[in-house]
């Protein structure tokens, strides 16, 4: 049955996320970027809500169960600041992946991540370079002596230099199926190249990582429903981008009603108001698409959504990049300076759009 209403829990999560985003994250957005790290108190506050650590209560999480609720949490938090949310979420998904696929023997690891705000986990997932996200070049195979060998290159691993536990995702060399392996940090054969920052999202201290490691067989995680979990992780990036875009147009809309030019608030010019309206139209539907895929991710009858999520991410990437751009243009010169946050959102939307990009899912389109 068609039901597009959020339930009471989701509404509560939305409200909490929005409040935290605006009151706690937004004020330290610049600081988190400059210091390349989330201020400890802010991380702790966010951590304690559990909104970015989607793990059941019995493992110490806040019990965010379904993906729709997770999306609601992320979009509202990101209304405050995408960089901090991306950092926290990147660590949180490691806990989620271990909780879902690690079995009872990994419960302690999960509890470590849900109880210690200084802990950081990581999932080495993205491979960049315009590859489809589900066609990993990282290969995983079982050696003759029954151990697991992992070889490959990953990019944009948040906290890659020191996250522990660390899960690497790749493709089983024989079956072609997707696999996830727990790789202890002290394993030989891990090379880390921490980026010296970038366009945005610096609070997550992302790194490129190369792996040529061999680990015990029991480090291979349970692969059942793994694609669903990966889909969930990937969808979160869409929610973060959309929360950012939404905030940017709300900010620009307010500016447009206050700023006067040629005798009128600039909102009175359709050349100003229509791009913002169009951005809202796009964001609305991209958000509905995100929630739809989130809901379908839990439908046992649904087909594999990997390709649909790739398409969504390409679309959201463009939607958020152009929406934040419309916000910059609305502010004109003021959109270009750090006194206003729109330039930060513009950079963040771009950086998010390059994380998980498949060139088959969209095409370059000139602006005119």
């Amino acid at each position, binding site marked *: *049955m*068609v*039901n*597009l*209403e*959020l*339930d009471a829990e*989701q509404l509560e999560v939305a409200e909490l996320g929005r409040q935290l985003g605006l009151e706690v994250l937004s004020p330290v957005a610049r600081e988190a970027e400059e210091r390349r790290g989330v201020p400890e108190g802010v991380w702790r506050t966010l951590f304690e809500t559990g909104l970015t650590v989607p793990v059941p209560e019995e493992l110490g999480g806040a019990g965010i169960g*379904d993906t*729709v609720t997770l999306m609601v949490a992320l979009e509202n938090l990101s209304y405050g600041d995408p960089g901090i949310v991306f950092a926290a979420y990147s660590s949180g998904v490691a806990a989620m992946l271990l909780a879902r696929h690690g079995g009872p023997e990994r419960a302690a690891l999960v509890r470590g991540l849900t109880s210690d705000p200084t802990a950081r986990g990581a999932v080495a997932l993205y491979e960049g370079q315009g590859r489809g996200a589900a066609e990993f070049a990282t290969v995983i195979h079982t050696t003759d002596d029954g151990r697991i060998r992992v070889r490959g290159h990953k990019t944009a691993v948040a906290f890659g230099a020191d996250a522990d536990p660390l899960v690497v995702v790749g493709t089983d060399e024989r079956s072609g199926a997707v696999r996830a392996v727990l790789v202890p940090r002290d394993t030989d054969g891990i090379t880390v190249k921490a980026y010296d920052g970038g366009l945005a999202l610096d609070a997550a201290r992302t790194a490129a990582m190369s792996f040529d490691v061999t680990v015990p067989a029991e480090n291979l995680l349970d692969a059942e429903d793994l694609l669903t979990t990966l889909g969930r992780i990937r969808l979160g990036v869409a929610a973060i981008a959309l929360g950012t875009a939404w905030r940017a*147009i*709300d900010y620009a*809309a307010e500016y*447009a*009603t206050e700023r006067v030019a040629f005798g*009128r*608030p600039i*909102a*009175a*010019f*359709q050349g*100003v*108001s*229509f791009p*913002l*309206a*169009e951005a*809202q*139209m796009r964001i*609305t*539907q*991209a958000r*509905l*698409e995100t*929630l*739809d895929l*989130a*809901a*379908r991710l839990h*439908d046992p009858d649904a087909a594999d959504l990997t*390709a*649909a999520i790739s*398409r969504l991410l390409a*679309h959201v990437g463009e939607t958020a990049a152009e929406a934040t751009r419309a916000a910059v243009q609305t502010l004109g010169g003021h959109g270009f300076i750090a006194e206003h946050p729109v330039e930060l959102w513009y950079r963040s939307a771009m950086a998010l759009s390059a994380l998980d990009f498949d060139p*088959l*899912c*969209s095409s370059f389109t000139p602006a005119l």
Partner: protein
Amino acid sequence: MTFSFTPSKPLADYARALRDWSASECRPYAREADDRHAPPENWREILDTAPVPLGRHDKPGSDPFPEFEDGYWVSRLAYYENLAYGDIWPFHTIGSGIGHRVVQAMGTPEQIEKWYEPVVGSGLVTAFALTEPHFGSDTSQVATTAVRDGDSWVLNGTKIFCTNGAVADYTVVFATTDKTLGAKGINAFVVPKGAPGFVVGKVNEHKMGIRSWVTSELVFADCRIPVENILGWSGDDQGRPRRGGQAGALSALASNRPNIATMGIGIAQASLDVTSRLLAEQRAGFSPRRWSAVQDELAAMNQALQRGRRAAHWAQFLLDRGGSDRSAAAIGKGYAPHTCERVIRRCMQLLGPEGTSRELLLEKWYRDVKIMDIFEGSGQVQRLIVARGLMGRVAG
């Protein structure tokens, strides 16, 4: 209660049955309807073959549109999309026009009893006359005049784009009783078929598309109607009706906007499915590289249409919950139509010149779909509504 775009099984079954029937039984008459500038002559018999209730107004006693737990307005989207999937001609025969809905929205209880209730399920057809040659969106410019003369109103003016205008049992005509009042002086009048001075200027305007939908030019030349035919007036309020005509007319339209977009989606989906089928037959003619590109194109177009569906569903879901949201309705209408045009265009391009020929229906559908971004508010009007939702009345 969990968030879901998936329709209930009864609604999904209804949608599928309607789509299959419309494609197999209505579509074969699409070319004829376009050429004739009218529905096929045997349209009643064709509609009689429908496997599900269409909510026909032309046939008294026929089953109403079913109720689904998904909600009325959401369910109606399934109707609009899947009927349009076959072709757009059946809409013109099934509907009874919208004049009586204006009566329902603006009339007194007596007027509703007299003009609205008899129409429902009766086969009677009503029309609506607002647009004039010199204006479209700016309804404050109504220049048709209504002057009180004893027990009559005397109307003078010209109306265009009146769906069913030439054939309706009555037409609800918007006219000004006092030009100095601007929009506030505009009122709605029930003009029965055959009223003296009621002249059909053109039975069916020469349109690029939706040719089988009769839209008329109506001329009112000293057209005389009884004094009680002004909507909202109960006789004891000195000639002032209870409600402004303009607001009433607009409220009758707003909830329909996502339906219009959804018709466009049905047409575009039909084009896309026809194209996919033809291209699959011609696969051998494509290099592997072009074939891959074509597959990506088809996927991108399907995704784009799916987005339009969601936006329309969102608006109508809110309407069903009583939380009608002008902005959501405007997004529902403003988002899809232009994209639907592009989908059909791309399909024709992928098919090459044969795609634009009369061998196929795509060229017709391209002409038909264009109206979806014009009537009941162009994309610009929808943007303005969304902008005002975002920035308030100051938005341009």
